[in-house]
């Protein structure tokens, strides 16, 4: 069109917003957050000589040497498999168990309800180092040391309070009447829970499960003490590259990529459910 369009704003409206400074801040924050990650990925692609060189080299020929070494000499795939088994199982069990606990706490009145809720929460208050020794002895007694089952049990117990508290709030946000509707319509308690409450809770449960999965995947303190050569998970495996004076930076970088990449891809894939689930209680 050749005609000049009148401005869509009223002449007496306040001046246009100028928020270039927002972009400056965003750029700065992104830069600070991304540089270490970029550096890790770059290091992972260096060969041994380049990685050790001082001052660091920015220009080099990328190579997958470090990844190859990790796979052939260090059994990285086994550790990744262990991590996956442990964190997925622990997530599954803690979410399923925690869901019912949370439901009971959200829906029913019973004596000592608040004490129970607080007691569950208090299980998360002790730092891991404070309980490592007793748990170690416990595991020894029950022959759980160096077994994935032991780790799954422990992580399930560890994440349970988190799951219960998170889901409790979400359950409380779902009106009771909708379950009562289903009961009057002729459903059983469990039928109403499965057909009505769970579908409404799906986004929240997904979000909680993602959280728990990340926490379990990254758990380090217990994994160091309770696993052996065959049951090692990724966090202690990666950390083992830091020991001693002769750190192989390119291997460490590649190991970091190993531990980060799966969870990163996963979170990117489920990002939308995650945000939807977390914000569910807030929009009403």
């Amino acid at each position, binding site marked *: 069109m050749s005609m000049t369009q009148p401005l869509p704003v009223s002449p007496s409206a306040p001046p246009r917003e100028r928020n270039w400074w927002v972009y400056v801040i965003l750029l700065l924050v992104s830069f600070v957050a991304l540089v270490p990650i970029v550096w890790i990925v770059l290091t992972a692609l260096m060969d041994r000589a380049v990685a050790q060189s001082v001052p660091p080299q920015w220009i080099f020929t990328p190579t997958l040497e470090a990844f190859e070494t990790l796979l052939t000499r260090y059994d990285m795939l086994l550790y990744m498999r262990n991590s996956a088994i442990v964190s997925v199982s622990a997530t599954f069990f803690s979410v399923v168990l925690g869901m019912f606990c949370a439901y009971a706490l959200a829906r029913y009145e019973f004596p000592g309800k608040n004490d129970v809720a607080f007691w569950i929460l208090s299980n998360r208050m002790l730092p891991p180092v404070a309980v490592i020794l007793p748990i170690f002895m416990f595991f020894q007694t029950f022959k759980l040391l160096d077994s994935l089952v032991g780790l799954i049990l422990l992580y399930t117990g560890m994440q349970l309070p988190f799951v219960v508290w998170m889901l409790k709030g979400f359950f409380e946000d779902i*009106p009771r*009447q*909708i379950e*009562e*509707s*289903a*009961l*009057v*319509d*002729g*459903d*059983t308690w469990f*039928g109403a829970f499965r*057909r*009505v409450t769970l*579908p*409404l809770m799906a986004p929240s449960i997904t979000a909680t499960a993602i959280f728990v999965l990340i926490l379990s995947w990254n758990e380090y303190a217990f994994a160091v003490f309770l696993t052996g050569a065959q049951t090692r998970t990724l966090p202690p495996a990666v950390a083992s590259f830091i020991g001693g004076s002769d750190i192989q930076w390119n291997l460490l970088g590649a190991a970091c990529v190993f531990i980060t990449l799966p969870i990163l891809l996963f979170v990117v894939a489920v990002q939308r459910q995650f945000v939807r689930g977390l914000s569910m209680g807030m929009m009403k």
Partner: protein
Amino acid sequence: MGQVAVTDLNKRFGSVAAVADVNFTVEDGEFLFLLGPSGCGKTTTLRMVAGLEMPSGGRIAIDSRDVTYLRPRDRNVGMVFERYGLYNHLSVFENIAYPLRVRRMSRQEIRSRVSAVAERLQIADVLDRRPGQLSGGQAQRVAIGRMLVRQADVFLMDEPISHLDAKLRAAMRIELKHLQRELKATTIYVSHDQLEAMTMADRILIMRDGTIQQFDTPKAVFDRPANEFVATFIGEPHMNVLDCRLTTEGARAFLQGDGFRIEVDPDWLARSGDLQRSDGAVRLGIRPEHIGVALPGEAGAEGAVEATLLTIETMGHQNAFAGDVGGTIVLARAAAYETRHIDGGEGRPILFRFDPRRIYLFDPRDGRTLAQAAAVSGEGRAA
């Protein structure tokens, strides 16, 4: 369809007695209203009939089956909640089909029943939508549809239309009543709206603080209220109530109040046995439409009560007058054409003519009705 018998029903929440010794029977096909102010225990009573709340005592029977402590699914009642009743993650079709799916009906049967109900409630064109995409009126129809779709013995509704706008509410009132008559469905309907109760109910159960105040037909609770609470609760605007004493001068009887005196029929007083035992202090009740309005000096003003005019509300066909009678505000309502000559002049004296045949007398201690309006009780108590 079923008959519901409730005997000595009680429910306490901690120290609160939400429902206390409630007895009533709903006949097969009857439309019963639970009516009362907020917090009087209507919802609690209904929830106990539905099985969502367990009674602290008493008995509930549907078709002489004792269902007092049965789970909701074993009672075969249908219920409409005020809100949040719909399953937001399911389509309208699936919402209505839910009770049938629970009963494992065949796919064909479900489809034909749901479409029949949707047809009747005029929601056939929204069956594919989610509840979030419906208007308030449509959503409530869906909830009603879910109740209708199966052969429930009793229909329960907890203020199903009270959050709709006035126009829609009026339409739904007619529709619901028609539906109930057509299906001959035993229905218990909770409401705090007396207009709904008066227009739709076969019988009304009026509650207050968990107890039954009166259980009768709409006409009876209006004409022959059991006590002052019912008398003032039913009727809009509500009945005027004034403190006064019974006095006699020879054969004549008067009600002497603060700033007024009304002559009443001594025979009428004599007919009330309860009145003889009282010490003479009574509360006089009269509805606004039974008070005539006149200016001082007008013809027919003798025996009228003097008042100071506070406001006049014009409502088109009627005028409402608020006047001060000895410190009590009295409302009168009269046809506009009769009171056209009285306008403006707040603060001026005015005369209220209480129709002596429309007067009720209440016991000031417990509010019991001591004497009925003669014009009403003359029609006979058999109705």
